[in-house]
Protein backbone atom coordinates (compact mmCIF):
# COMPACT_ATOMS: atom_id res chain seq x y z
CA UNK A 1 0.00 0.00 0.00
CA UNK A 2 2.67 2.42 1.14
CA UNK A 3 4.64 1.87 -2.05
CA UNK A 4 2.05 3.27 -4.35
CA UNK A 5 3.33 6.27 -6.30
CA UNK A 6 0.99 8.87 -7.70
CA UNK A 7 2.70 11.59 -9.68
CA UNK A 8 0.56 14.71 -9.83
CA UNK A 9 3.19 17.33 -10.52
CA UNK A 10 3.02 17.37 -14.30
CA UNK A 11 2.95 21.17 -14.25
CA UNK A 12 6.52 21.02 -12.93
CA UNK A 13 7.63 18.38 -15.37
CA UNK A 14 6.46 15.19 -17.04
CA UNK A 15 8.04 11.78 -17.55
CA UNK A 16 9.63 11.16 -20.94
CA UNK A 17 7.54 8.87 -23.11
CA UNK A 18 9.00 5.55 -24.15
CA UNK A 19 8.65 6.41 -27.86
CA UNK A 20 10.42 9.71 -27.25
CA UNK A 21 13.32 8.05 -25.50
CA UNK A 22 13.61 5.55 -28.35
CA UNK A 23 13.69 8.35 -30.90
CA UNK A 24 16.43 10.11 -28.95
CA UNK A 25 18.73 7.19 -28.19
CA UNK A 26 20.40 6.85 -31.61
CA UNK A 27 21.51 10.47 -31.29
CA UNK A 28 23.28 9.68 -28.03
CA UNK A 29 24.92 6.66 -29.67
CA UNK A 30 25.75 6.09 -33.35
CA UNK A 31 24.30 9.27 -34.80
CA UNK A 32 26.86 11.54 -33.26
CA UNK A 33 27.72 13.74 -36.24
CA UNK A 34 27.69 17.50 -35.92
CA UNK A 35 24.73 18.75 -37.94
CA UNK A 36 26.90 21.55 -39.32
CA UNK A 37 29.40 19.08 -40.81
CA UNK A 38 29.43 18.32 -44.50
CA UNK A 39 30.06 14.58 -44.20
CA UNK A 40 27.46 11.86 -44.20
CA UNK A 41 27.29 11.59 -40.41
CA UNK A 42 26.70 15.30 -40.14
CA UNK A 43 24.16 15.43 -42.93
CA UNK A 44 22.11 12.61 -41.42
CA UNK A 45 21.83 14.48 -38.15
CA UNK A 46 20.99 17.69 -40.00
CA UNK A 47 18.16 15.87 -41.71
CA UNK A 48 16.84 14.64 -38.36
CA UNK A 49 16.87 18.16 -36.93
CA UNK A 50 15.08 19.48 -39.99
CA UNK A 51 12.46 16.82 -39.49
CA UNK A 52 11.99 17.78 -35.83
CA UNK A 53 11.62 21.39 -36.91
CA UNK A 54 9.01 20.42 -39.49
CA UNK A 55 7.05 18.42 -36.92
CA UNK A 56 7.13 21.32 -34.49
CA UNK A 57 6.08 23.80 -37.16
CA UNK A 58 3.33 21.51 -38.38
CA UNK A 59 1.80 21.17 -34.89
CA UNK A 60 1.77 24.95 -34.45
CA UNK A 61 0.63 25.72 -37.98
CA UNK A 62 3.89 27.57 -38.55
CA UNK A 63 6.57 27.52 -41.21
CA UNK A 64 9.71 25.54 -40.25
CA UNK A 65 11.74 28.72 -40.74
CA UNK A 66 9.76 30.26 -37.88
CA UNK A 67 10.91 27.68 -35.31
CA UNK A 68 14.08 28.25 -33.27
CA UNK A 69 15.24 25.57 -30.86
CA UNK A 70 16.45 26.76 -27.46
CA UNK A 71 17.34 25.28 -24.09
CA UNK A 72 13.76 25.56 -22.84
CA UNK A 73 10.94 27.86 -21.87
CA UNK A 74 13.20 30.15 -19.88
CA UNK A 75 15.54 30.80 -22.78
CA UNK A 76 12.68 31.21 -25.25
CA UNK A 77 11.14 33.89 -23.04
CA UNK A 78 14.49 35.61 -22.60
CA UNK A 79 15.15 35.52 -26.31
CA UNK A 80 11.76 36.96 -27.23
CA UNK A 81 11.74 39.73 -24.64
CA UNK A 82 15.37 40.76 -24.51
CA UNK A 83 15.86 40.16 -28.20
CA UNK A 84 12.98 42.47 -29.02
CA UNK A 85 13.99 45.13 -26.50
CA UNK A 86 17.50 45.21 -27.94
CA UNK A 87 16.12 45.87 -31.39
CA UNK A 88 14.49 49.10 -30.21
CA UNK A 89 16.22 52.30 -31.20
CA UNK A 90 15.39 53.81 -27.82
CA UNK A 91 13.83 52.79 -24.51
CA UNK A 92 10.12 52.11 -24.70
CA UNK A 93 7.19 50.48 -22.99
CA UNK A 94 6.26 46.82 -22.40
CA UNK A 95 2.97 45.40 -21.11
CA UNK A 96 2.88 42.14 -19.22
CA UNK A 97 0.98 40.70 -16.26
CA UNK A 98 1.82 40.30 -12.60
CA UNK A 99 1.31 36.54 -12.77
CA UNK A 100 3.85 35.65 -15.44
CA UNK A 101 6.47 33.00 -14.81
CA UNK A 102 9.73 34.31 -13.33
CA UNK A 103 11.30 33.70 -16.74
CA UNK A 104 9.26 36.68 -17.98
CA UNK A 105 9.04 38.80 -14.82
CA UNK A 106 12.73 38.76 -14.05
CA UNK A 107 13.57 39.68 -17.64
CA UNK A 108 11.13 42.58 -17.39
CA UNK A 109 12.84 43.75 -14.20
CA UNK A 110 16.15 43.75 -16.06
CA UNK A 111 14.64 45.67 -18.94
CA UNK A 112 13.35 48.27 -16.49
CA UNK A 113 16.89 48.65 -15.20
CA UNK A 114 17.96 49.15 -18.78
CA UNK A 115 15.59 52.08 -19.14
CA UNK A 116 12.38 50.52 -20.48
CA UNK A 117 9.06 50.99 -18.72
CA UNK A 118 6.98 47.95 -17.86
CA UNK A 119 3.31 47.75 -16.91
CA UNK A 120 2.46 44.67 -14.85
CA UNK A 121 -1.27 44.21 -15.28
CA UNK A 122 -3.35 42.95 -12.37
CA UNK A 123 -5.66 39.95 -12.66
CA UNK A 124 -9.13 39.28 -11.28
CA UNK A 125 -9.77 36.78 -8.50
CA UNK A 126 -9.80 33.95 -11.04
CA UNK A 127 -6.43 34.97 -12.39
CA UNK A 128 -7.79 36.44 -15.63
CA UNK A 129 -6.35 39.46 -17.39
CA UNK A 130 -8.93 41.90 -18.73
CA UNK A 131 -8.23 42.74 -22.40
CA UNK A 132 -9.69 46.20 -21.73
CA UNK A 133 -6.94 46.76 -19.17
CA UNK A 134 -4.39 45.80 -21.79
CA UNK A 135 -5.82 48.35 -24.18
CA UNK A 136 -5.90 51.02 -21.50
CA UNK A 137 -2.23 50.41 -20.74
CA UNK A 138 -1.08 50.92 -24.30
CA UNK A 139 1.19 53.95 -24.66
CA UNK A 140 2.54 55.58 -27.84
CA UNK A 141 5.89 53.84 -27.30
CA UNK A 142 4.57 50.38 -26.32
CA UNK A 143 6.54 47.96 -28.46
CA UNK A 144 5.76 44.61 -26.83
CA UNK A 145 2.96 42.83 -25.01
CA UNK A 146 3.80 39.54 -23.29
CA UNK A 147 0.98 37.58 -21.71
CA UNK A 148 1.12 33.88 -20.84
CA UNK A 149 -1.34 31.53 -22.52
CA UNK A 150 -2.08 29.80 -19.23
CA UNK A 151 -0.76 30.24 -15.74
CA UNK A 152 1.43 27.48 -14.38
CA UNK A 153 0.22 27.73 -10.79
CA UNK A 154 -3.52 28.25 -10.90
CA UNK A 155 -4.01 27.05 -14.48
CA UNK A 156 -6.08 30.02 -15.64
CA UNK A 157 -6.29 30.40 -19.43
CA UNK A 158 -5.78 33.92 -20.68
CA UNK A 159 -7.77 35.60 -23.48
CA UNK A 160 -4.76 35.63 -25.80
CA UNK A 161 -6.91 35.87 -28.92
CA UNK A 162 -8.41 39.17 -27.73
CA UNK A 163 -5.14 40.49 -26.41
CA UNK A 164 -3.26 39.51 -29.56
CA UNK A 165 -5.92 41.15 -31.69
CA UNK A 166 -5.55 44.39 -29.73
CA UNK A 167 -1.79 44.22 -30.08
CA UNK A 168 -2.05 43.82 -33.80
CA UNK A 169 -4.55 46.69 -34.14
CA UNK A 170 -2.06 48.93 -32.40
CA UNK A 171 0.94 47.62 -34.31
CA UNK A 172 2.50 46.16 -31.16
CA UNK A 173 4.38 42.85 -31.08
CA UNK A 174 2.74 40.09 -29.04
CA UNK A 175 4.57 37.30 -27.23
CA UNK A 176 2.90 34.49 -25.33
CA UNK A 177 4.55 32.09 -22.91
CA UNK A 178 2.65 28.96 -23.92
CA UNK A 179 4.84 26.54 -21.98
CA UNK A 180 1.86 25.18 -20.03
CA UNK A 181 -0.44 24.99 -23.03
CA UNK A 182 1.49 23.51 -25.93
CA UNK A 183 0.84 19.78 -26.02
CA UNK A 184 -2.19 20.16 -23.72
CA UNK A 185 -4.55 22.26 -25.82
CA UNK A 186 -4.58 23.10 -29.50
CA UNK A 187 -2.45 26.11 -30.40
CA UNK A 188 -2.36 27.30 -33.98
CA UNK A 189 -0.52 30.47 -34.93
CA UNK A 190 -2.76 30.91 -37.96
CA UNK A 191 -5.77 31.40 -35.72
CA UNK A 192 -3.98 33.59 -33.22
CA UNK A 193 -2.38 36.98 -33.73
CA UNK A 194 0.86 35.88 -32.07
CA UNK A 195 4.31 37.13 -33.04
CA UNK A 196 6.26 34.85 -30.73
CA UNK A 197 5.44 31.83 -28.64
CA UNK A 198 7.57 29.96 -26.09
CA UNK A 199 7.30 26.23 -25.53
CA UNK A 200 9.22 23.67 -23.51
CA UNK A 201 9.57 19.93 -24.25
CA UNK A 202 9.58 18.64 -20.69
CA UNK A 203 5.99 19.78 -20.14
CA UNK A 204 4.67 17.40 -22.80
CA UNK A 205 6.56 14.18 -22.05
CA UNK A 206 9.71 15.28 -23.82
CA UNK A 207 13.19 15.77 -22.38
CA UNK A 208 14.27 18.60 -20.08
CA UNK A 209 16.54 21.40 -21.22
CA UNK A 210 15.10 21.86 -24.68
CA UNK A 211 12.39 24.15 -26.00
CA UNK A 212 11.57 26.35 -28.91
CA UNK A 213 10.63 29.87 -29.79
CA UNK A 214 8.16 30.40 -32.58
CA UNK A 215 8.91 33.77 -34.21
CA UNK A 216 6.69 35.01 -36.97
CA UNK A 217 8.48 35.69 -40.25
CA UNK A 218 9.61 39.28 -40.61
CA UNK A 219 9.79 39.98 -36.87
CA UNK A 220 13.32 41.05 -36.04
CA UNK A 221 15.15 40.27 -32.81
CA UNK A 222 18.74 40.49 -31.60
CA UNK A 223 20.25 37.16 -30.46
CA UNK A 224 21.32 36.74 -26.85
CA UNK A 225 24.57 35.02 -27.79
CA UNK A 226 26.99 35.43 -30.62
CA UNK A 227 28.68 32.51 -32.27
CA UNK A 228 28.12 30.19 -35.20
CA UNK A 229 25.26 30.22 -37.63
CA UNK A 230 23.07 27.60 -35.96
CA UNK A 231 19.35 28.39 -35.72
CA UNK A 232 19.93 31.05 -38.37
CA UNK A 233 22.27 32.88 -36.00
CA UNK A 234 19.46 33.58 -33.58
CA UNK A 235 20.65 30.86 -31.23
CA UNK A 236 24.23 29.95 -32.05
CA UNK A 237 25.98 26.89 -30.62
CA UNK A 238 26.04 23.23 -31.62
CA UNK A 239 22.52 21.95 -31.30
CA UNK A 240 21.23 19.79 -28.43
CA UNK A 241 20.54 17.08 -30.97
CA UNK A 242 18.95 14.36 -28.81
CA UNK A 243 16.87 17.03 -27.07
CA UNK A 244 15.61 18.52 -30.31
CA UNK A 245 14.76 15.08 -31.72
CA UNK A 246 12.95 14.30 -28.47
CA UNK A 247 11.04 17.58 -28.59
CA UNK A 248 9.84 16.95 -32.16
CA UNK A 249 8.76 13.42 -31.38
CA UNK A 250 7.07 14.35 -28.09
CA UNK A 251 5.20 17.25 -29.61
CA UNK A 252 3.94 15.24 -32.56
CA UNK A 253 2.67 12.51 -30.23
CA UNK A 254 1.17 14.97 -27.75
CA UNK A 255 -0.62 16.96 -30.43
CA UNK A 256 -2.16 13.80 -31.87
CA UNK A 257 -3.80 12.90 -28.57
CA UNK A 258 -4.93 16.39 -27.54
CA UNK A 259 -8.65 15.98 -28.28
CA UNK A 260 -8.84 12.78 -26.31
CA UNK A 261 -6.44 13.85 -23.56
CA UNK A 262 -8.18 17.17 -22.96
CA UNK A 263 -11.47 15.47 -22.34
CA UNK A 264 -9.92 12.74 -20.24
CA UNK A 265 -7.89 15.07 -18.03
CA UNK A 266 -10.71 17.58 -17.68
CA UNK A 267 -12.93 14.84 -16.36
CA UNK A 268 -10.30 13.60 -13.90
CA UNK A 269 -9.60 17.20 -12.91
CA UNK A 270 -13.22 17.92 -12.15
CA UNK A 271 -13.58 14.71 -10.15
CA UNK A 272 -10.63 15.68 -8.01
CA UNK A 273 -11.86 19.25 -7.57
CA UNK A 274 -15.29 18.02 -6.58
CA UNK A 275 -13.85 15.60 -4.05
CA UNK A 276 -11.50 18.17 -2.55
CA UNK A 277 -14.24 20.77 -2.19
CA UNK A 278 -16.21 18.30 -0.08
CA UNK A 279 -13.61 18.78 2.64
CA UNK A 280 -14.52 21.66 4.93
CA UNK A 281 -12.81 25.02 4.38
CA UNK A 282 -11.20 24.23 1.07
CA UNK A 283 -11.27 26.79 -1.72
CA UNK A 284 -10.51 26.42 -5.39
CA UNK A 285 -7.90 28.78 -6.77
CA UNK A 286 -8.09 29.86 -10.39
CA UNK A 287 -11.03 29.76 -12.75
CA UNK A 288 -13.66 27.01 -12.39
CA UNK A 289 -13.84 26.36 -16.15
CA UNK A 290 -11.25 28.45 -17.95
CA UNK A 291 -8.33 26.41 -16.72
CA UNK A 292 -5.76 23.93 -17.97
CA UNK A 293 -7.22 20.44 -18.36
CA UNK A 294 -4.87 18.93 -15.76
CA UNK A 295 -4.63 21.76 -13.23
CA UNK A 296 -6.15 21.62 -9.76
CA UNK A 297 -5.16 24.27 -7.25
CA UNK A 298 -6.83 24.47 -3.86
CA UNK A 299 -6.16 26.11 -0.51
CA UNK A 300 -6.73 24.24 2.72
CA UNK A 301 -7.52 26.76 5.41
CA UNK A 302 -5.72 26.74 8.77
CA UNK A 303 -2.85 24.55 7.61
CA UNK A 304 0.37 25.14 5.77
CA UNK A 305 1.22 23.82 2.32
CA UNK A 306 4.66 22.39 2.92
CA UNK A 307 3.38 20.20 5.73
CA UNK A 308 0.59 18.97 3.43
CA UNK A 309 3.10 18.24 0.67
CA UNK A 310 5.31 16.35 3.05
CA UNK A 311 2.37 14.29 4.31
CA UNK A 312 1.30 13.55 0.74
CA UNK A 313 4.84 12.59 -0.16
CA UNK A 314 4.89 10.10 2.71
CA UNK A 315 1.87 8.48 1.03
CA UNK A 316 3.63 8.42 -2.32
CA UNK A 317 1.76 11.39 -3.76
CA UNK A 318 3.77 14.08 -5.58
CA UNK A 319 2.22 17.56 -5.77
CA UNK A 320 3.43 21.14 -5.27
CA UNK A 321 2.58 24.17 -3.17
CA UNK A 322 2.68 27.95 -3.28
CA UNK A 323 3.48 28.16 0.42
CA UNK A 324 6.40 30.30 1.54
CA UNK A 325 7.99 27.42 3.40
CA UNK A 326 8.08 25.24 0.29
CA UNK A 327 9.32 27.91 -2.07
CA UNK A 328 12.99 27.98 -1.20
CA UNK A 329 12.76 31.74 -0.88
CA UNK A 330 10.30 31.92 2.02
CA UNK A 331 8.08 34.18 -0.08
CA UNK A 332 4.52 33.09 -0.84
CA UNK A 333 3.66 32.73 -4.51
CA UNK A 334 3.25 36.01 -6.40
CA UNK A 335 0.40 34.45 -8.37
CA UNK A 336 -1.68 33.59 -5.32
CA UNK A 337 -1.08 37.07 -3.91
CA UNK A 338 -2.14 38.56 -7.26
CA UNK A 339 -5.48 36.72 -7.23
CA UNK A 340 -6.12 38.27 -3.84
CA UNK A 341 -5.47 35.41 -1.44
CA UNK A 342 -4.44 36.47 2.04
CA UNK A 343 -1.06 35.15 3.19
CA UNK A 344 -2.47 32.27 5.15
CA UNK A 345 -4.70 31.01 2.36
CA UNK A 346 -1.78 31.27 -0.03
CA UNK A 347 0.40 29.28 2.37
CA UNK A 348 -2.19 26.51 2.42
CA UNK A 349 -2.29 26.05 -1.33
CA UNK A 350 -1.61 22.79 -3.13
CA UNK A 351 -1.37 22.25 -6.86
CA UNK A 352 -2.12 18.83 -8.28
CA UNK A 353 -1.27 18.73 -11.96
CA UNK A 354 -2.38 15.73 -13.97
CA UNK A 355 -0.74 14.12 -16.94
CA UNK A 356 -1.35 11.36 -19.46
CA UNK A 357 -0.41 8.60 -17.01
CA UNK A 358 -2.93 9.52 -14.31
CA UNK A 359 -6.15 7.58 -13.97
CA UNK A 360 -9.30 7.43 -11.90
CA UNK A 361 -7.68 5.17 -9.32
CA UNK A 362 -5.11 7.93 -8.69
CA UNK A 363 -7.88 10.44 -8.02
CA UNK A 364 -9.54 8.06 -5.59
CA UNK A 365 -6.24 7.37 -3.86
CA UNK A 366 -5.50 11.06 -3.41
CA UNK A 367 -8.97 11.79 -2.09
CA UNK A 368 -8.73 8.88 0.31
CA UNK A 369 -5.37 10.04 1.65
CA UNK A 370 -5.87 13.80 1.75
CA UNK A 371 -8.86 13.84 4.09
CA UNK A 372 -7.07 12.35 7.13
CA UNK A 373 -3.95 14.41 6.36
CA UNK A 374 -5.93 17.64 6.49
CA UNK A 375 -7.76 16.53 9.61
CA UNK A 376 -4.55 15.66 11.40
CA UNK A 377 -2.75 18.88 10.49
CA UNK A 378 -5.77 20.90 11.56
CA UNK A 379 -5.70 19.16 14.91
CA UNK A 380 -2.13 20.37 15.32
CA UNK A 381 -2.94 23.90 14.14
CA UNK A 382 -3.70 26.69 16.63
CA UNK A 383 -5.67 28.49 13.92
CA UNK A 384 -8.28 25.79 13.65
CA UNK A 385 -10.92 25.87 16.32
CA UNK A 386 -12.60 22.59 17.02
CA UNK A 387 -15.59 22.61 19.28
Amino acid sequence: MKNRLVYMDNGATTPVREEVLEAMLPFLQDQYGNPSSLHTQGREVRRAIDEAREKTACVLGADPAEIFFTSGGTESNNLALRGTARKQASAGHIITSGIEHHAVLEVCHDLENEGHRVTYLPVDRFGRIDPAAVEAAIAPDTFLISIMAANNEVGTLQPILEIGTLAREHGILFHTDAVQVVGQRPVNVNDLPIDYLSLSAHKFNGPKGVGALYKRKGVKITPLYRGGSQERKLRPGTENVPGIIGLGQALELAAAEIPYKMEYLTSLRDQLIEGLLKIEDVILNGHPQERLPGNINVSFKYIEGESILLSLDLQGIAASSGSACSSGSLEPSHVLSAIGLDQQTAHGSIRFSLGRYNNEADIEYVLEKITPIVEKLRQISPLHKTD
Partner: protein
Amino acid sequence: MYNEKVVDHFSNPCNVGELTDADSIGESGSFKCGDTMKIFIKVEDGRIENIKFQTYGCGAAIASSSMLTEMVKGKTLDEAMHITNQNVADELGGLPPLKLHCSNLAADALHNAIADYRRRLEPDYTD
Protein backbone atom coordinates in the same frame (compact mmCIF):
# COMPACT_ATOMS: atom_id res chain seq x y z
CA MET B 1 15.05 17.17 2.26
CA TYR B 2 14.42 16.25 5.93
CA ASN B 3 16.21 13.47 7.79
CA GLU B 4 14.38 10.46 9.21
CA LYS B 5 14.17 11.83 12.73
CA VAL B 6 12.53 15.03 11.53
CA VAL B 7 10.09 13.09 9.39
CA ASP B 8 9.31 10.83 12.34
CA HIS B 9 8.55 13.75 14.67
CA PHE B 10 6.51 15.36 11.93
CA SER B 11 4.50 12.20 11.24
CA ASN B 12 3.98 11.25 14.87
CA PRO B 13 4.28 14.46 16.82
CA CYS B 14 4.38 14.19 20.61
CA ASN B 15 2.38 16.38 22.97
CA VAL B 16 -0.03 17.87 20.47
CA GLY B 17 -3.00 19.84 21.72
CA GLU B 18 -4.07 22.27 24.40
CA LEU B 19 -3.77 22.09 28.19
CA THR B 20 -7.00 23.32 29.69
CA ASP B 21 -5.31 23.73 33.08
CA ALA B 22 -2.15 25.37 31.75
CA ASP B 23 -0.21 27.59 34.11
CA SER B 24 1.11 29.57 31.21
CA ILE B 25 0.79 29.88 27.45
CA GLY B 26 3.51 31.17 25.15
CA GLU B 27 3.24 32.13 21.53
CA SER B 28 5.66 32.87 18.73
CA GLY B 29 5.38 33.57 15.05
CA SER B 30 7.41 34.26 11.99
CA PHE B 31 6.46 37.33 10.04
CA LYS B 32 8.51 36.03 7.19
CA CYS B 33 6.87 32.71 6.38
CA GLY B 34 3.74 32.90 8.51
CA ASP B 35 4.48 29.92 10.76
CA THR B 36 2.99 30.28 14.26
CA MET B 37 3.09 28.25 17.40
CA LYS B 38 1.54 28.10 20.81
CA ILE B 39 2.88 26.27 23.84
CA PHE B 40 0.99 25.33 27.02
CA ILE B 41 2.86 24.45 30.21
CA LYS B 42 1.82 23.00 33.54
CA VAL B 43 4.37 23.76 36.24
CA GLU B 44 4.84 21.87 39.50
CA ASP B 45 7.63 22.52 42.05
CA GLY B 46 9.49 24.62 39.50
CA ARG B 47 9.42 21.84 36.93
CA ILE B 48 7.54 21.50 33.65
CA GLU B 49 5.18 18.78 34.66
CA ASN B 50 3.20 18.77 31.43
CA ILE B 51 3.53 20.50 28.08
CA LYS B 52 1.50 20.65 24.89
CA PHE B 53 1.78 22.54 21.64
CA GLN B 54 -0.17 23.70 18.62
CA THR B 55 1.68 24.65 15.45
CA TYR B 56 0.68 26.12 12.15
CA GLY B 57 3.61 25.62 9.87
CA CYS B 58 5.82 23.48 7.75
CA GLY B 59 7.40 20.13 8.50
CA ALA B 60 10.36 21.75 10.26
CA ALA B 61 8.10 23.84 12.48
CA ILE B 62 5.96 20.87 13.52
CA ALA B 63 8.92 18.52 14.08
CA SER B 64 10.80 21.04 16.19
CA SER B 65 7.70 21.76 18.27
CA SER B 66 7.37 18.07 18.98
CA MET B 67 11.07 17.62 19.73
CA LEU B 68 11.18 20.63 22.04
CA THR B 69 8.27 19.42 24.13
CA GLU B 70 9.98 16.06 24.54
CA MET B 71 13.24 17.73 25.54
CA VAL B 72 11.81 19.93 28.27
CA LYS B 73 9.25 17.68 29.88
CA GLY B 74 10.29 17.21 33.52
CA LYS B 75 12.98 19.87 33.31
CA THR B 76 13.20 22.79 35.77
CA LEU B 77 12.21 26.18 34.42
CA ASP B 78 15.85 27.26 34.55
CA GLU B 79 16.96 24.26 32.55
CA ALA B 80 14.20 24.82 30.05
CA MET B 81 15.16 28.47 29.66
CA HIS B 82 18.64 27.35 28.63
CA ILE B 83 17.43 25.20 25.77
CA THR B 84 18.08 27.06 22.56
CA ASN B 85 16.66 26.80 19.10
CA GLN B 86 20.00 25.37 18.04
CA ASN B 87 19.71 22.60 20.68
CA VAL B 88 16.35 21.62 19.21
CA ALA B 89 17.68 21.55 15.65
CA ASP B 90 20.73 19.55 16.79
CA GLU B 91 18.58 17.06 18.66
CA LEU B 92 16.63 16.57 15.42
CA GLY B 93 19.87 15.69 13.69
CA GLY B 94 19.97 18.96 11.76
CA LEU B 95 17.58 20.87 9.51
CA PRO B 96 18.00 22.34 6.04
CA PRO B 97 19.62 25.80 6.49
CA LEU B 98 16.61 27.59 5.03
CA LYS B 99 14.35 25.86 7.53
CA LEU B 100 16.24 26.87 10.65
CA HIS B 101 14.13 29.98 11.06
CA CYS B 102 10.95 27.84 11.06
CA SER B 103 12.37 25.73 13.87
CA ASN B 104 13.27 28.81 15.91
CA LEU B 105 9.64 29.27 16.84
CA ALA B 106 9.51 26.38 19.26
CA ALA B 107 12.07 27.50 21.86
CA ASP B 108 10.87 31.09 21.48
CA ALA B 109 7.30 30.12 22.35
CA LEU B 110 8.48 28.12 25.35
CA HIS B 111 10.65 30.95 26.63
CA ASN B 112 7.71 33.31 26.29
CA ALA B 113 5.53 30.93 28.28
CA ILE B 114 8.12 30.60 31.05
CA ALA B 115 8.83 34.34 31.21
CA ASP B 116 5.13 35.05 31.48
CA TYR B 117 4.73 32.47 34.22
CA ARG B 118 7.58 33.91 36.22
CA ARG B 119 6.40 37.46 35.80
CA ARG B 120 3.08 36.47 37.30
CA LEU B 121 4.10 33.95 39.94
CA GLU B 122 7.64 34.77 41.00
CA PRO B 123 7.45 38.24 42.59
CA ASP B 124 11.20 38.88 42.41
CA TYR B 125 11.50 37.80 38.77
CA THR B 126 12.95 40.23 36.27
CA ASP B 127 13.26 39.61 32.55
